[in-house]
């Protein structure tokens, strides 16, 4: 939050601002998994002195940024199969150990993209439900349910303007009740058994969000509406 100037709060966040907002909530020393796609941008906003260690589910802790051109190692890739680097203190492990690390609740924070998130924290991010699509899931389900805290980072609306924070997901689920916070360009929400609560807005209001999403949204903890 401190990384954002107040101007940012008066308009929707850019992708970089959204990544900075997510990063601001991650405690120093945390172990973090960043899902492929948009969440990878969060890495650029983690302070190098923070001691945050990145996990990549294909078998590594201590993942560093993309290599310099010419320094690509085909044996060193991230979950998106893009080349990465190794930071001091890194370790490698096989797939069963890597997913044990996820599933066993050892990762502090997992940041995922989403097609839809429900107000109760259900996540849909692996299938568009298109009947002719080749299905693929990868580590999405393990990531969603395994981390101590799973948060979503997404645009609040689809390209067609449909809400992605919904009463009930209509797309195939990735996990049930697994998401606790949703970071979007227009607002940050807490979701869970008590429904969705607005934590912070960017260039919009609580009332406008309710109209946009056709949802009843609770106030942020400690605030009245």
């Amino acid at each position, binding site marked *: 939050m401190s990384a954002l100037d107040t101007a940012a709060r008066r308009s929707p966040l850019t992708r970089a601002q959204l990544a900075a907002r997510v990063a601001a909530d991650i405690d120093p020393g945390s172990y973090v998994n960043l899902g492929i796609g948009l969440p990878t941008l969060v890495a650029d906003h983690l302070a190098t002195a923070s001691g945050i260690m990145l996990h990549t*589910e294909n078998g590594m802790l201590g993942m560093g940024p*993309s290599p310099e051109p010419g320094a690509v190692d085909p044996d060193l890739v991230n979950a998106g*199969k893009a080349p990465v680097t190794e930071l001091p203190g890194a370790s490698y492990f*096989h*797939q069963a150990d890597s997913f044990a690390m996820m599933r066993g609740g050892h990762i502090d924070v997992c940041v995922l*993209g989403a097609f839809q998130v429900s107000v109760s924290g259900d996540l849909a991010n*692996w299938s568009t439900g298109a009947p002719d699509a*080749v299905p*693929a899931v990868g580590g999405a389900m393990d990531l969603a349910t395994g981390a101590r805290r799973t948060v979503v980072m997404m*645009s609040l609306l689809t390209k067609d303007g449909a809400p992605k924070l919904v009463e009930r997901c209509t797309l195939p689920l990735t996990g049930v009740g697994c998401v606790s916070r949703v970071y979007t360009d227009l607002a940050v929400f807490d979701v869970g058994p008590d429904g969705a609560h607005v934590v912070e807005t960017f260039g919009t209001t609580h009332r406008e969000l309710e109209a946009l999403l056709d949802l009843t949204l609770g106030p942020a903890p400690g605030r009245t509406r």
Partner: protein
Amino acid sequence: MSATVFASSALDALGDVADGATVMIGGFGPAGQPAELVVALLEQGASGLVVVSNNAGNGEDPLARLIQHGRVAKMVCSFPRQVDSWHFDAAYRSGAVELELVPQGSLAERIRAAGAGIGAFFTPTGFGTPLAEGKEHRRIEGVDQVLEYAIHADVALVRADRADGVGNLVYRKTARNFGPIMAAAARRSVAQVRDVVPVGALDPEAVVTPGIYVDAVVELTEVTSTEVTSTAGTSTVGAVAAGTEGLV
């Protein structure tokens, strides 16, 4: 398993693979894929294969060609759809290949279970999703969990970095991925390595796959591997990437 055999070619190392065999193929995309052993499998000729592998081939790599040539009856994998998985896509859409889609962590754990003599296990992953439909489930310590069964194989093909004279293996970086658990899960495990070193040259504390899991080794100094894109992000694949296209 009895003592590891050192073969002079990938085809010799592969040995006999029966039609209809279940074959595990290591690798996470190109990293750790035993490309030459899969080429040998192409040459060897077995068909009707059940292939257990995280992905279903990239571009014209050997696994993709195995699918293209109609040698695979079924794929068991977590992420068959990639930007360059056209051979699998075509075979899947035409009905030529069956797909069992398994969440990646459950795939890994099911492979480990086979090697560890565990028949089945309860995991929270996938509960309440389409991939758990029809599967037994129960609530354990307040968490809903799905019963998943071990996946055994007739043959495992893996790529490691080095082997010593008794078949102990070490890997390189994230190319380790599925190698160790697949080597343990198959009745016969074959490893292609960059280098064979003398017995005693590997640190016993740092052996990743003990030789007991390795039936045959072939040293292939010139390991070809599909090029990895050199810019992070361009090879980002799949559902989540697609899902974020609409952002801002």
